[in-house]
């Protein structure tokens, strides 16, 4: 590896930081993804079904409704947070006039 690309070298420090923050966000969202669908919807569905909210057994609701809504929100949160992160590190894509693409 050439010297200039060593992680932590002054010029590339931002790359390490950017990537770390991206990964942290990604892992956080994937934990929610797993917990809601596989956790609430499959692994603990029987326990949650004991609770009935608005005619729906809760585990059944998570498996057939709740997890789908959660997925949509997760992607939106990811896109919005990445917008902020890209901007903070100056790697957001802009056209010649400086408008965001």
């Amino acid at each position, binding site marked *: 590896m050439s010297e200039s690309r060593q992680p932590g070298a002054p010029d590339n420090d931002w790359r390490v930081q950017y990537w770390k923050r991206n990964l942290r966000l990604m892992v956080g969202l994937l934990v929610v993804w797993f917990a809601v669908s596989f956790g609430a919807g*499959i692994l603990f569905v029987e326990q949650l079904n004991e609770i009935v909210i608005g005619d729906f057994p809760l585990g059944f609701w998570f498996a057939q409704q709740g997890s789908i809504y959660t*997925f949509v929100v997760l992607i939106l949160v*990811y896109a919005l947070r990445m917008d902020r992160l*890209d901007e903070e590190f100056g790697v957001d894509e802009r056209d010649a006039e400086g408008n965001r693409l």
Partner: protein
Amino acid sequence: MSAIQFWTTIFIVLSFTVYIYIAWRSRVKETAGFYVAGQGIPTVANGAAVAADWMSAASFISMAGLIAFLGYDGAIYLMGWTGGYVLLALLLAPYLRKWGKFTVPEFVGDRYSELVRTIAAGAAILISFTYVVGQMRGGGIVFSRFLNLPVAGGVAVAAAIIFTYAVLGGMKGITWTQVAQYTVLIIAYLIPAFAIAQTITGFPIPQISFGSVLAELNALSIEFGLDSYTEPFTARPQIDVFLVTMSLMIGTAGLPHVIIRFYTTKSVRGARYSAFWALLFIALLYSTAPAVGAFAKFNILDGVGGTAVTELPDWIESWEATGLVTVNPDVDTIESISNNAADGADLTVDNDILVLANPEIAGLPAPVVGLVAAGGMAAAMSTAAGLLLVISSSASHDFYFRRVKKGHASESEKLLVGRLAMAGAVVIAVIGGINPPAFVAQVVAFAFGLGAASFFPTLVLGIFWKRCNAKGAAAGMSAGLLFTATYMIWSLYISPGSTVLNISPEGIGTVGALVNFAVAIIVSKSTEPPSEELMELVENMRYPAMTRRDGRPVEPIAEQAPPAEPGGV
């Protein structure tokens, strides 16, 4: 001609006229420079196009019917086919968009080697093909009911239309046609769902109101010899529900015809938002489907169960002609209902007809029935055409052009090979569609298992692990694919019904993906790392912009040595 046939013809002809008109107009605009660099397609429109491409006959026609008979266990399809978008948005789409090569074989060809490209092209053909079989069956059911043909005839008509549609060419590339198809299919799905919710519960939002029939549905199901509706793991054991859901999710993320759509966005950011809009549009249908399934089952059990055979509603007679609904001739009253002929129930209803028959079952007017048929065709068409194009481009470009002719073939030669591959695929798909190995949604689930075991691990490692090399990827992909296909063939044909540890052939893709990951990592670790240049290219996938805003380039190495084209053009 009955009122239903009349309205079906009207809606199908009308919707097809709209698709062709839009396609023709967009072509005119295209030559006039409408889509020239930088203009791009709005992410909302792109999202709708992804949704249309994605939601096939399996989603539209088959899924709610399966859920009706599976009850809770139908959640494998609901979560499996939506959760994959989270993986796609977070792990693949933005990075592949940044890389700039858009078919899966193209990407792995650049990232790894020509050998991996060939394996990927083979896998793309195999997966798309399995998937097309499901579409043919779905389209065939629509025609068989509304043209009063046996299923085989319906499949042949659907195949002829889909083939013509795909060969017309270009349509698939024209996003606006798919936006129109999405509009038709979602309206066709939601209108009857809202109407049925209103009729049964008095509240029109199906997502909320289907809760109120669940308790009664559980009681009715048990009365007619079926499993309680909300009870989990009646159709599949817990471990299998887990594995099938995971397999569908990671299969979704690796499907070649979906990934290809993310390069019509103008930026990495656009790819993220496209994924969001796509899933939002998909969720509209997917959150409605479980309600449709519950209402359909309620209607059948409540309306038909305990009725004398001589007094059965009209829809049963009209669907009996297709052979997809059968009444046991030896009984006087319907006392048991099943979706499987082998059960010997008094009334057997095929899963695949429920959505199409639902408006009739609920007694909605004929135009609504016609609209649903048009929606089903839109779903089958948009997906089948996209899949046939993946098959033909993989066969002509990745196999014939790159491999057989080593880059020396004329455009017309490539086109011919592509069309031959497409025609061959249609013929075999018709045979498969007439004698499917399982229900539409299940056939499709096999395609996802194969995708999960081959593409997803190879793509994720290619993006997130710079050290992964061509040998590792080739070994991993072959091992995953071989393992999964072998298990499916063994469990379906060689020793029908046998499984290891209760893992069904639909769920084996998850294990196949683990095999792929493990083999790829071990082989990569024990062979030489990829070149410095390649690793730097992989690193550059991480940063959306080409340059940082203060003017410093994001890619120091690429400036010194221009990016290598490992495939060679």
